């Protein structure tokens, strides 16, 4: 079986074939059966989560969240919400919850379903990988929180969801391009944090980190604290924008 730490260009392919071998019973001798399940499942879930996040989370967040506050501002519904017995925080949490529902549907639900299927088919799997579900839950929660806050912040800046969508994708692609350029020019991988999307990839990979996970997926070259700080910065900035908008609407 190929080494999991192989980071060569063909490493990922070899690694995937290793997973298939593992499922077929050709696992390395010195690992126990439970550890092997744990490793295979961790790798698979990390893969799924990261891939699903890239494929679905950004467009889903955009479609769902871009108009959430913009429409309320345009139709003055925000005034009605704010004059009901609910706080501004309640309003924002309510909107975040809408986004989280869809994000969880695209990430947590399939990953948990895969885990459930594996647990029902493989003896000892559930016991060996019991901590995956809370880890995935935490990862999805953080992804929903950060993405949700950013899209709501953009939505509160605009009076139309379309404009929020445009700014959202501009933020994703422009920051990604900038990050790639900076990393290529300086050779310092910390600049990958400039990319909005890479921040999530790093966060998720570190949250799902278990023994035996290949280095190529973990992205240890960027300090975890720095990743968390950058994402927290996005959240705080978005909350500040939302607060400003909501207060302005309440007072006008």
């Amino acid at each position: 079986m190929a080494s999991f730490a192989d980071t060569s260009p063909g490493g990922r392919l070899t690694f995937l074939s290793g997973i298939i071998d593992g499922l077929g019973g050709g696992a390395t001798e010195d690992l126990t059966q439970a550890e092997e399940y744990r490793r295979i499942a961790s790798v698979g879930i990390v893969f799924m989560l990261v891939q699903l996040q890239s494929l679905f989370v950004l467009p889903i967040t955009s479609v769902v969240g871009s108009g959430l506050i913009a429409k309320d501002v345009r139709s003055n519904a925000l005034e009605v919400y704010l004059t009901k017995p609910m706080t501004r925080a309640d309003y924002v949490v309510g909107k975040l919850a809408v986004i989280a529902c869809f994000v969880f549907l695209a990430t947590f639900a399939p990953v948990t379903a895969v885990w459930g299927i594996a647990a029902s088919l493989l003896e000892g799997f559930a016991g060996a990988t019991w901590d995956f579900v809370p880890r995935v839950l935490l990862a999805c929660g953080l992804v929903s929180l950060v993405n949700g806050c950013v899209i709501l912040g953009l939505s509160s800046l605009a009076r139309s969801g379309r404009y929020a969508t445009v700014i959202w994708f501009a933020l994703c692609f422009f920051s990604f391009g900038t990050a790639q350029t900076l990393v290529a020019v300086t050779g310092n991988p910390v600049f990958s944090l400039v990319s909005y999307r890479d921040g999530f990839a790093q966060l998720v990979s570190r949250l799902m980190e278990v023994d035996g996970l290949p280095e190529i997926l973990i992205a240890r070259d960027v300090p975890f604290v720095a990743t968390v700080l950058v994402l927290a910065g996005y959240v705080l900035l978005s909350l500040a924008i939302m607060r400003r908008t909501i207060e302005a609407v309440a007072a006008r």
Partner: protein
Amino acid sequence: MNAPSDETAALRVESLAVRYGRHEALRSVDLLFDGPSLGLLGPNGAGKSTLIKTLLGLIRPRSGRALVFGRDAYRDRLEIRRRVGYVPERDCHVPDMSAVDYVTLGGELAGMPRTEAIQRAHEMLWFCGLGEARYRAVDGYSAGMKQRTKLAQALVHDPELLLLDEPTNGLDPEGRLHLLGILRDLQDRKGIRVVLSSHLLRDVEFVCREVAVVAKGRVVRSGRIEDLKRISDRNWRVKVRGELPAFVTRLETAGARLEASDASFRVETPDADGSRAHRRGRGRRGRPAPRPRAQVASAGLLDSLEPGAETCRYRSRLPTLGGDFRPSRLRWLPMVRYHLKIQLRQKLL
């Protein structure tokens, strides 16, 4: 105004000041209301909406305090909003939502159980005359229907106090009368206190028994409408072309109150014979209605003072609501800023 003995009056505002940046929206406002209905009367920009929003806890006062049912309007805003219904000035609805869903949502946000909220939403929409159209999206409603939908969502949680901000704006005469009729019915039959903000005296007169006149961020007059009208009969705007000091002295000696504004005075002449002065009678056998006694007395006083100065009398009215704005030297600046803002909003956002 009624004078409640304790602090549990429906509204109690003391030395309230609200500021938006440098602009003082409310300056030392005092108000007490515990009756069935109060009209907030004043021109646009007088501070009526700011006062209502402060009462709802949307705006934090800079100083002073506002109590609603004895509770601090900002600190206990959630509790107050449970007991208060609010009809905003502008069109406001959740896009693509039917009226019944919209009103139900209002009830649920106010803390009602869903089943009860649905039931009440149907009742309120029928009560407001939207029974047949309640399943249609609010986006497609006429202005009058939208106003009534707003009223229904404000009433759905059975509030004790209803705050309405310019509810008749944009309504045709029939729709206006219908809405005002509902408001009168609410206070007379349902026992809901009504606070109506408007710049239309006739709307306030139709619905309210008490009025607070708001101008330039202050409550300049408040009381029963009948009493204020009586004061109005003794109010004169006098322009003097002649020996001014002598005229002023004579007026003050006669017991009149003077308030100078630009080139004219507002003169409040003394009431000739107390409460009787206000009484208005209907003319008998087709004769024209007699002038109120106070008005006759006031006119007489001013006439007697004419030898010293030339005066022009204007029609008596409620206290003036005119603005007192100092124009900036950079008059073009707001225009440029305004256009830039529009362009940025249209092209970028």
